[in-house]
């Protein structure tokens, strides 16, 4: 039933589905409604990390040393914990500098060095070849095995190599066509391949489901759960040893640790991981979910690895079946055709996902960082003068894709048979780990420079090549095997697998130790001993301090020179096409409230930088630099100048922080001042009122005094009676004047707080008695009845005796003035309640209007019409009295019904509670 043709048809149907998904996602992206703008899609696309190697090879490795495969997934989990610090920074840097690939990132960091970009590209391509060949091998092997159904025949058992290699070639070519269709349909300035990302995310789901399906089938279908599988395996002595594998293997823990470190590097620096995690990222916020979703994915896809491995070892105890194929051969042995087909599709997903993203990433690098810089430098080609280079760019990328896949196929043919899947993959891991010092050093250490990065990469790569790549070729018979056994020229110390006599480690660990020593040593050592150029200095600062340099304009500060707008526009149009160039210029112009193409733009540093960044998005930083330099006249900055600008920038940051602080303080101070000003204005107004009222009050008696003295002066024959009367008036008015002035002085003393208060225990009965005695004659003259109700025993108050007499005098003289003319009556009452003393002074006059009641205590307020009635007081007495009472913690108010007299009352705290009450509550019994 599982006929070859059927399998091929299903495979093509699956690839067709992928293409449909990609096409749909691209369409949505063009319509401005992208499907990939989701953290879930981003997390799933990161799972391109799980390749055919994970799908088939994990079980293979687990079958030989138990948990030995797990560091490949635990390492990334640990690294992802650092993503918040590391990847966020790389994302920000890449967005600001329009980084297009891993090589571009490194080249840009070290002064946009084309040489470095090219070197990284070469290392990446050579390093990844084994990995790509691994995918081809997995697909062709699984296809070959599946076709044999229902027999389980492994490729190794028969001489099937030529057929399988043909299959691998076909797989390579089909994948090349597929990748070209996916990745190089058009040129995107941001290097986003939304369709590809959507398809990859879908593939990640398929491979996970397929693997979980086979895991559930083996664990719960063939066996009776996890416990059953492990219990049966434990019965076999050989398998039982695998359950505590770490001490059994020589250098067990060392291998484990180095494998973890290697995988930590791989998750960051495999070109395809860099592509999906950094280049294809559309929103920094997606990182938040990916930080835990992606590890969950890795955990999920590994849960069933051990049960499948043990299941396979139990099912094929004679070792006739390669453990790398258990995932496929177990369902086949159990006659589960559809499951086997699903597994094949899952493996195909894993392989195609990896190949597509990896070759797109590598072809971008080959095009932008290897081929273009060379072509642009070759003046003979006159590339600078070609009107449209987009076709050329796409052509180079398509060629690179085919070439890379064919090289992968070549490696498969040369060396693919000698190793298990995992070992092939790890060779690639070790290669990309060589980028770690240059990148991590580059984003956290400003001291790292171009020469250091070059030396580090070259040394690391040479050690990798010698200790890993060469042995792989030697084992396949392409290099004399004697090299491994006796070292070059018989020098034992230089044996590739035991360099300098270091033995007892597996070859990956061994190669990692030596290559990292060489790489980091050279990077740090050379960086410290060679001084950087101005370009390197600038780029180092832009990368390391990326969170401090806001916006894309960060680089513009470093540019000086002359350029013309049409030149820049034509340059962009040649590489992006005129439509894209137009929209880029329009965007630039509208961000500055200018119009394009009306010629309002000036070719200043900002525009030149903008064009360079746009160009970098298409052809990489190093090439963009060369191209921009070809159309502008640039003034080279010296190292010192760059350093000055950087210093200036950091000082500006400090200044602006300080300025912000200052302006906040100023705002607060301004608010306070405004408030104070309002208060002052109010006081000023009050003072004006006061002065005008006082002068008015002074003028009235003065006018009358002057009038009478003039009469006496002008008319000497005024009779004695008249004269006496006039002099009496003058004396009275003078007294009033004196009283008024005294009160004004008194008031100003009280209000300014300069009044002297003599505090002592005062008996209010005494105060009232004294006052009544002093006024007795007045009452008699006016025929006023006075009624005083004073209790026998009252508490004293703490107050100033003279002041209290002043208050009583004021209240009583007011009562005398206002009580009924004919039948005057004044009542005085003293009472004590709840710690408060209360004094009421009542009269039987005409009372006070409710409107006047609240005003009566203000300065110069006099009841009645001051224009017609003769004023009967200064208008200050009550005001001063109230001040005095309040000073001693009391309160004064008036109650009155018109026509029924008025009652002035005040309260004072009894001596015991005086101090506490002075600052707090209103006295009980006071109207509210």
């Amino acid at each position, binding site marked *: 039933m599982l006929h070859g043709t059927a399998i091929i048809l299903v495979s093509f149907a699956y690839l067709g589905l992928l293409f449909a998904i990609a096409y749909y996602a691209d369409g949505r992206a063009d319509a401005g409604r992208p499907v990939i703008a989701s953290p879930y899609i981003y997390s799933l696309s990161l799972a391109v990390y799980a390749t055919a190697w994970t799908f088939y090879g994990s079980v293979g490795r687990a079958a030989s040393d138990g948990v030995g495969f797990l560091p490949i997934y635990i390492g990334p989990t640990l690294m992802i914990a650092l993503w918040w610090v590391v990847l966020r920074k790389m994302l920000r840097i890449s967005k600001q500098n329009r980084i297009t690939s891993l090589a571009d990132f490194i080249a840009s960091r070290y002064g946009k060095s084309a040489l470095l970009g090219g070197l990284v590209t070469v290392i990446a391509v050579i390093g990844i070849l084994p990995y790509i060949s691994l995918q081809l091998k997995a697909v062709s092997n699984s296809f070959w095995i599946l076709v044999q159904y229902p027999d389980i025949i492994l490729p190794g058992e028969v001489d099937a190599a030529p057929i399988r290699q043909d299959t691998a070639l076909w797989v390579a070519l089909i994948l090349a066509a597929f990748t070209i269709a996916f990745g190089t349909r058009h040129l995107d300035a941001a290097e986003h391949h939304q369709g590809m990302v959507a398809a990859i995310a879908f593939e990640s789901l398929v491979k996970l489901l397929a693997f979980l399906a086979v895991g559930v089938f083996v664990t719960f279908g063939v066996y009776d759960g996890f416990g059953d599988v492990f219990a049966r395996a434990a019965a076999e002595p050989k398998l039982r040893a695998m359950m505590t594998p770490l001490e059994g293997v020589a250098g067990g823990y060392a291998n*484990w640790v180095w494998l973890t470190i290697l995988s930590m590097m791989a998750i960051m620096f495999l070109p395809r991981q860099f592509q999906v995690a950094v280049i294809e990222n559309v929103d920094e916020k997606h990182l938040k979910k990916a930080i835990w979703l992606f590890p969950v994915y890795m955990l999920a896809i590994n849960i069933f690895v051990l049960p499948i491995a043990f299941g396979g070892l139990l099912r094929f105890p004679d070792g006739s079946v390669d453990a790398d194929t258990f995932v496929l051969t177990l369902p086949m042995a159990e006659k589960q055709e559809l499951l086997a087909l699903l597994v094949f599709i899952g493996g195909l997903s894993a392989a195609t996902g990896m190949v597509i993203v990896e070759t797109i990433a590598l072809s971008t690098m080959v095009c932008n960082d290897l081929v273009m810089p060379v072509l642009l430098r070759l003046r003979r080609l006159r590339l600078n003068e070609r009107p449209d280079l987009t076709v050329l760019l796409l052509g180079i990328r398509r060629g690179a894709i085919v070439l890379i896949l064919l090289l992968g196929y070549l490696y498969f043919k040369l060396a693919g048979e000698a190793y298990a899947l995992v070992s092939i993959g790890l060779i690639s891991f070790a290669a990309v780990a060589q980028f770690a010092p240059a990148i991590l050093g580059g984003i956290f250490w400003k001291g790292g420079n171009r020469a250091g990065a070059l030396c580090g990469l070259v040394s690391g790569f040479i050690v990798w090549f010698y200790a890993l790549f060469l042995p792989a070729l030697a084992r396949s018979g392409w290099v004399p095997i004697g090299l491994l056994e006796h070292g070059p020229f018989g020098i034992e110390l230089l044996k590739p697998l035991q360099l300098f006599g270091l033995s007892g480690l597996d070859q990956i660990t061994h190669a990692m130790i030596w290559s990292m020593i060489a790489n980091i040593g050279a990077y740090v050592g050379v960086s410290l001993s060679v001084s950087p150029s101005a370009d390197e200095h600038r780029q180092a600062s832009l990368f390391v301090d990326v969170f401090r340099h806001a916006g894309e304009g960060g680089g513009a500060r470093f540019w000086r020179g002359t350029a013309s707008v049409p030149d820049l526009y034509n340059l962009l149009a040649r590489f992006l096409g005129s439509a894209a160039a137009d929209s880029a210029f329009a965007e630039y112009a509208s961000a500055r409230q200018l119009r394009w193409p009306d010629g309002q733009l000036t070719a200043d540093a900002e525009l030149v930088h903008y064009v360079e960044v746009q160009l970098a998005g298409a052809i990489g930083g190093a090439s963009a630099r060369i191209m921009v330099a070809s159309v502008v006249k640039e003034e080279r900055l010296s190292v010192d100048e760059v350093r000055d600008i950087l210093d200036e920038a950091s000082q500006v940051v400090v200044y602006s922080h300080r300025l912000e602080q200052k302006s906040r303080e100023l705002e607060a101070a301004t608010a306070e001042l405004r408030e104070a000003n309002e208060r002052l204005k109010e006081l000023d107004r009050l003072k004006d009122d006061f002065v005008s009222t006082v002068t008015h009050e002074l003028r009235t008696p003065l006018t009358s005094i002057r009038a009478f003295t003039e009469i006496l002066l002008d008319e000497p024959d005024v009779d004695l009676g008249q004269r006496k009367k006039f002099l009496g008036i003058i004396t009275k008015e003078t007294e009033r004047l004196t009283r008024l002035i005294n009160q004004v002085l008194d008031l100003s003393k009280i209000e300014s707080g300069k009044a002297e208060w003599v505090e002592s225990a005062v008996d209010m009965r005494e105060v009232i008695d004294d006052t009544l005695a002093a006024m007795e004659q007045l009452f008699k003259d006016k025929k006023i009845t006075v009624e005083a109700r004073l209790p026998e025993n009252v508490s004293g108050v703490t107050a100033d005796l003279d002041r209290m007499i002043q208050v009583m005098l004021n209240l009583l003289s007011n009562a005398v003035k206002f009580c009924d003319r004919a039948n005057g009556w004044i009542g005085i009452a003293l009472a004590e309640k709840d710690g408060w003393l209360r004094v009421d002074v009542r009269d039987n006059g005409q009372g006070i209007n409710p409107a006047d009641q609240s005003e009566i205590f203000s300065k110069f307020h006099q009841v009645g019409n001051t224009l017609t009635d003769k004023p009967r007081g200064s208008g200050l007495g009550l005001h001063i009295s109230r001040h005095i009472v309040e000073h001693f913690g009391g309160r004064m108010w008036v109650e009155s019904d018109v026509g029924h007299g008025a009652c002035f009352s005040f309260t004072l705290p009894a001596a015991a509670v005086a101090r506490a009450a002075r600052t707090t509550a209103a006295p009980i019994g006071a109207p509210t």
Partner: protein
Amino acid sequence: MSDFEKKGQRFIALCMLGILMFNYPILALFNVSGTLFGVPVLYAYIFIAWAALIAVMAYVTESGG
């Protein structure tokens, strides 16, 4: 300290914790024969510790701003 920095420090601490958990000598403590819920102790430990680490990472990244 900004929220961004605080999270960064928590993640660095988590990474260090992870390195400790999946390394000699802690790992050696579990490298013994015997089973936990029918699963060999070493396997059980690695998967449980791994899941716990991811859970804390999820908590740190999703908490706060």
